[in-house]
């Protein structure tokens, strides 16, 4: 076993000493959170070109109201009140009476939109106030080139419905003064739980935001995925190179195949733990600086290290075994996807799990050993109280599975590492587990 540690130490040094590792540590989280950062950086990059919209109002209820409302909006929302910079497009509505040949009128307006003379046109059905059985007469249609994604359509929804409700209430005899109360919207705030502090005082609950509920589980999940990519995934290519460059045969002159593989896995684990320590140290400094200590679920960290260790052992063995079966980069490419799949599936289903961490789906998925390290960590990082037994049972399951992975990986490794010319297929690898 001492020899396995020597191999692990070499593997560790060979990885962490490279510039690639340092650059990877910096770049990987940027890539991981790339879309979030991009959205944040680009949120001010909106199209500020004014939008001209024609309204064909068959109901005679809406056009004037919307024109007034758009003017009010243009005065408040188009220019930054402090620096005078234009931050949003102005909406200009024009009323157009319905023509006798409505189809020709619609076509003409569409042509104007295509010619960029107009942004969109809004057609309001005659029966919107009291919708009857005729569906066509109660519709409100917003025609444009890309209206499904447009902010203007979103803006229109509230004033249009407010107007209709107010008109209906007025017909029902409700006084105008009461209507403001009727339309007052009160938000349901998300709050944490009431607790008792160290001095025994009952501590009031704090409000929680959607972002806060998401951020800790997401960071934990991404950290786990990142460390898997950093510690386990490179083992596939590393072992394949040692095989193809005949280094493996030299090593096997000194070390048993199983110890060779274990050494590689331990080396990968050490790399992953180093990366995790770097991120957690930097993260701790950052949260202390911004006064966010109480937002970080510190009790989850021991679980993170436990699950990370099991994850890298499990995935590292699979990667090393797959690498031993490969003869070239193409083989490695073909095998990397199926071997990576157990780490990809938790990423695919993470949002349903974050949203409902106690659902039967989340519970069962997180108890399937290949998914346990990522999904269980994700669940226990959410503010919801996951039953205490579940992380333990999950850890036990993944421990058994990791032992199996090491055993099966060792058997594949022993056959594969000296065998060349046999293209690796999953069925072949399964056979090798039996053959050993």
């Amino acid at each position, binding site marked *: 076993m001492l*020899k396995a540690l*020597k*191999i692990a130490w*070499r593997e560790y040094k*060979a990885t962490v000493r490279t510039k690639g590792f340092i650059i990877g540590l910096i770049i990987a989280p940027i890539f991981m959170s790339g879309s979030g950062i991009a959205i944040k950086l680009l949120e001010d990059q909106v199209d500020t070109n004014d939008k001209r919209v024609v309204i064909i109002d068959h109901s005679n209820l809406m056009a004037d109201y919307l024109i007034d409302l758009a003017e009010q909006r243009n005065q408040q929302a188009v220019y930054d009140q402090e620096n005078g910079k234009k931050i949003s497009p102005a909406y200009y509505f024009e009323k157009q009476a319905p023509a006798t040949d409505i189809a020709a009128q619609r076509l003409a307006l569409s042509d104007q939109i295509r010619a960029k003379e107009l942004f969109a046109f809004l057609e309001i059905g005659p029966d919107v106030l009291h919708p009857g059985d005729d569906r066509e007469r109660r519709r409100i249609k917003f025609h444009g080139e890309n209206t499904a994604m447009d902010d203007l359509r979103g803006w229109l929804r509230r004033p249009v419905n407010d107007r209709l409700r107010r008109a209906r209430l007025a017909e029902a005899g409700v006084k105008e003064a009461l209507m403001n109360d009727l339309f007052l919207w009160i938000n349901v705030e998300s709050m944490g739980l009431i607790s008792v502090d160290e001095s025994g005082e009952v501590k009031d609950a704090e409000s929680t935001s959607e972002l806060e509920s998401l951020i800790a589980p997401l960071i934990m999940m991404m950290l786990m995925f990142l460390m898997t990519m950093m510690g386990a995934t490179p083992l596939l290519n590393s072992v394949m190179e*040692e095989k193809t*460059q*005949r*280094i*493996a*045969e*030299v*090593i*096997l*002159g*000194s*070390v*048993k195949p199983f110890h060779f593989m274990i050494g590689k896995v331990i080396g990968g684990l050490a790399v992953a733990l180093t990366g995790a320590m770097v991120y957690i140290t930097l993260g701790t400094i950052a949260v202390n600086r911004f006064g966010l200590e109480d937002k970080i679920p510190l009790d989850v960290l021991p679980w993170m290290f436990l699950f990370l260790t099991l994850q890298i052992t499990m995935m590292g063995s699979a990667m090393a075994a797959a690498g031993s079966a490969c003869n070239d980069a193409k083989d490695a490419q073909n095998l990397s996807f199926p071997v990576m799949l157990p780490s990809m599936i938790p990423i695919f289903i993470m949002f349903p799990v974050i949203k409902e961490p106690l659902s039967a789906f989340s519970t069962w998925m997180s108890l399937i050993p290949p998914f346990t390290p990522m999904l269980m960590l994700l669940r226990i990082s959410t503010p919801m109280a996951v039953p205490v037994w579940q992380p333990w049972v999950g850890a036990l399951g993944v421990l058994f599975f990791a032992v199996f992975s090491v055993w099966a990986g060792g058997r594949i490794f022993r056959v594969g590492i*000296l065998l060349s010319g046999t293209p690796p297929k999953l069925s072949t690898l399964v056979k090798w587990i039996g053959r050993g």
Partner: protein
Amino acid sequence: MNTVEIEQVSKSFGKVIAVNELSLNVPNGSIYGFIGPNGSGKTTTLRMIMNIYYPDNGMIRVLGKQVSGAASDRIGYLPEERGLYKNMKVREMLRFYGDLKNGQNIPAQVDYWLERLDLTNWADKKVQTLSKGMSQKVQFIATVVAKPELLILDEPFSGLDPVNMDVLKDAILEMQQAGTTVIFSTHDMAVAEKMCDFIFMIFKGQKVLDGTLTAIQDKYGSDTIRIRTADGRSVLSNLPGIDKINDFGRQQELRLRSGADTQAVLAEIMQRTSVEKFETVQPSLHDIFVRIAGPEAEEATHA
């Protein structure tokens, strides 16, 4: 006492029998040459001695212990295809290989061998900067740095220039004199003849030769004429009593048919050309190899 004892060992890969019921004893302190055409089972045998492959049947005892699942630290192994970490520095990598063998005083040993093989200036360079010959010498150091009692070298001289070949040959002989047993495989019959105390030939997984060079040659008798003439190979066709001619350019070897008269052959040649050299000798190892392995071996020895 034998360093290696192989008894009735077989190894198959699927339907291919790589080694078939092989028995062999390698005495302590000897140099044992493994010869045979490509794919005949040499490397498989060496890997089984190293316990990299497990035999299907039979028993292998190395340095007094039955091989059972552990690569021995007392054996140095130089595989046929060299395996070095290209991104590591030479000295660092050699220390790593030495440590893997649990060798004693590895840093000093590494420095000694680097000096001995004239590689000191390359000690802190990355392996990828070395020439092929230098890489081979580095690989050799990796094999011997932990002072093995048994040295297994698979094609140690392939690709080396004569100077480096001599350097390596001297190092091997020096280790033998210090008591190390050496097994090496080679396609170079001249090297095998000159260096080996014993020669073992394997062909299609079967042992076909095993013994000292003299004992092997004695089996074949003096059935070979080594000749040099004024007109070379061109005048030697259709000679009576000759089965085969091996042409070496300035010299030819003629294999006598059983019962043929040497004097009659000489008389016939003298009628055709002037003879500069004529001697009756035992067949060379090359010739014996070719006789056993036929066209496959011709290919292998000229590879």
